[in-house]
């Protein structure tokens, strides 16, 4: 009898470990969160009281960034050193984290209610979740101080990405856009002289490339987010700024015919079989490799595409001069302006316990001079007026000019919407590409998720 019990017990233990492996990460938050709400009030009081902190106060500013590239890291370090030299009472503690490690670590400290003072953010849905949980500091007053001196240096579209209900919880330091990166040589081989300017011209270009035996488009749809660019851009063109904003604010719906039409346009493209073999299971790395090695004629990707192509190509050179850029084509009859841009960038969010010094340092980080330094090493498309002086790469200058023409800036759907909805968008669009979901079903899935998550 007792042996039976022991065996049973040990089997339960094995099963329990199985569950513990799944369950333990959720276990992080506990007691601390309960007594947190008292703290932000205490730290915010001096912030609103006066902008000039007493110089004798020793202050430590914690700063987490993900710029691991040597030259980029060096610029951040230099700016911090300069600031500390000018403000001897301030110590800036920098943590440089790799992208995925950063996300994991940030989630943990957020769950324990202790965000760093300044940290990497992409704005939008994830930042909004933190803001709603009271983990971020509202810096609107700092932006508006002195007649909006700080606010007016930013391009408004980029700054808006870090705002929720008109309150800013962070500021951008880079803002790019998604567009077509194409191989000029392959386009010429297929007899295409000018980059397509309308959706129909794009379809014609795809047909011409296919006829010439060239894979027209590389897509890493296994990662899902690269495919969501296609849908997001089409929806931005067809539904316009208002269409998305209404649906996201729950005064409209994602089942609106314009969203369904956007998905139908995707099917129209997909019917031409424009993508490389096995694109449904391919990663973004595969996508960049295909273009970088000249195996596919174009890709729809963000401002980082040339760098990644180069890195992933066999000769580590990428396409070089053969690479060109054109904006997402116009969709005639759509409500959106053909100049409207879809994309995103990088910024810094401000944690709830940040001191006035931390905000002041953030101001320093986003001066035009700092922006020039980042642009010079090609790691950012400046968002502060005057910063573009540092841009040297002709492709980046083209991109920056295209971006500056945009009346409306649409943040990536999977960033602009709450994480759950963004993930449903990505999953559903993959379903449309694979033909397992009709456009109507896909939009219904997004709508259902939005109805549940956005309140």
């Amino acid at each position, binding site marked *: 009898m007792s042996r039976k019990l022991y*065996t049973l017990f040990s089997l339960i233990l094995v*099963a329990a470990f199985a*569950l513990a492996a799944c369950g*333990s990460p*959720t276990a992080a*938050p506990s007691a601390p969160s309960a007594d947190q709400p008292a703290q932000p009030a205490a730290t915010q009081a001096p912030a609103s009281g006066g902008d000039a902190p007493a110089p004798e106060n020793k202050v430590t500013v914690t700063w987490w960034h993900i710029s691991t590239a040597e030259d980029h890291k060096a610029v951040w370090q230099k700016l911090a050193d300069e600031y500390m030299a000018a403000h001897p009472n301030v110590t800036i503690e920098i943590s440089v984290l790799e992208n995925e490690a950063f996300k994991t670590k940030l989630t943990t400290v957020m769950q324990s209610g202790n965000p760093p003072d300044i940290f990497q953010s992409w704005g939008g849905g994830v930042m909004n*979740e933190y803001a709603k949980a009271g983990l971020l500091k509202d810096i609107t007053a700092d932006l508006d101080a002195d007649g909006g001196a700080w606010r007016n240096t930013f391009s408004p579209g980029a700054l808006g990405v870090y705002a929720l209900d008109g309150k800013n919880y962070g500021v951008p330091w880079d803002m790019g856009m998604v567009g077509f990166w194409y191989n000029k040589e392959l386009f010429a081989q297929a007899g295409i002289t000018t980059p397509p300017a309308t959706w129909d011209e794009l379809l014609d270009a795809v047909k011409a490339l296919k006829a010439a035996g060239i894979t027209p488009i590389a897509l890493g749809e296994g990662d899902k987010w690269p495919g969501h660019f296609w849908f997001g851009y089409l929806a931005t063109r067809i539904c316009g700024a208002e269409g998305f904003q209404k649906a996201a604010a729950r005064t409209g719906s994602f089942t609106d015919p314009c969203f369904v039409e956007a998905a139908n346009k995707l099917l129209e493209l997909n019917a031409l079989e424009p993508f490389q073999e096995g694109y449904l299971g391919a990663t973004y790395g595969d996508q960049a490799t295909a273009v970088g090695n000249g195996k596919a004629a174009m890709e729809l990707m963000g401002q980082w595409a040339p760098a990644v192509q180069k890195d992933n190509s066999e000769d580590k050179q990428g396409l070089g001069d053969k690479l060109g850029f054109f904006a997402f084509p116009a969709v005639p009859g759509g409500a959106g302006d053909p100049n409207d841009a879809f994309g995103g960038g990088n910024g810094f969010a401000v944690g709830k316990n940040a001191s006035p010094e931390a905000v002041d340092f953030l101001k320093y980080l986003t001066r035009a001079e700092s922006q020039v330094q980042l642009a010079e090493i090609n790691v950012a498309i400046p968002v502060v007026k005057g910063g573009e002086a540092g841009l040297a790469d002709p492709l980046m200058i083209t991109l920056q000019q295209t971006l500056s023409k945009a009346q409306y800036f649409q943040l990536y759907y999977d960033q602009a919407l709450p*994480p759950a909805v963004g993930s449903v968008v990505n999953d559903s669009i993959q379903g449309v590409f*694979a033909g397992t979901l009709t456009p109507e079903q896909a939009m219904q899935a997004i709508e259902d998720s939005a109805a549940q998550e956005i309140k």
Partner: protein
Amino acid sequence: MQSLPAIPNILKLKPGTGMPRRFQDNLMIFLFLLPAIVLFLLFVVYPIFQSIYYSMFNWKGFGPAVDFVGLNNFKNILSDRVFMIALRNGFLIIGLSLFVQLPLSLMLAVLVGRDLPGRVFFRTIFFLPYVLSEVIAALMWLFILNPDPDRGFINAVIVLFGGTPQAWLGNTNLVLISIFAALTWKYFGYHMLLFMTGLQNIPSEIEEAGRVDGANAFQNFFFITLPLLASTIRTSVYISVLGSLQQFILVWIMSKGGPVNASETMATYMYRFGFVRFQLGYGSAVAIYMFLLCLIFSLIYLHFTRKPDYLSGLEG
């Protein structure tokens, strides 16, 4: 010399005063177990109850869980088509493991466990994949299965023989089989080792006796070796089934459960909701289902394997 007087003491204690002796023993056992029990309670039992608690909330992981939804999460999971796909895939992997992976391992164990020339070499080769980390194995298979014939080994071979290259991980019909191939490659060495140990415990006299009595190699294997290997096979099955139910790393790296959920397992489903969609309450509910499935299987396994374990087993 001084220890001698102690002996009669013990002898006297043993038959007479059983109670205090047993109490002392138990106290000793308890004290030795205490650190493990504390750790176990803290890091295993407590999180389980926390998971159960969170599974009844619509909770995003920040701040306290306040949006109580009762058993809604559990209800919604059962009506989710994707969870059913995950469940089906789980059972499919179990079936394939039991009827493909284990027989293959057994076959190889029989081959390399005997006097085969170069068996040590083959044993090492076969066991090598198991030593690799799952992440590395998954990345290797990503390269091998790359759809581009210039980069993917398998498609290169297919093209060499004039076939059409396949999108192994990009085709909803092929993805699960492709992943299973990687899983088999990764784990058959482990099961092979288990079987080899089992084979070594079978006295060669029994098989010899069989041969003397006129049994051919085939009969010898099926009527002598296999029954004597039963307890090892049961262990293998248990490990294999639980492993299949919880399969995550390899699947997540190779396909992220896609394309369009075609290779979703319960663990990837749980991860998707818990850590991609930030729906930790829902994710916790999935974890509870996984726990229950593992537990039910364990109980069934226990029920069916107890008696034979006592009766058979030459190892005593």
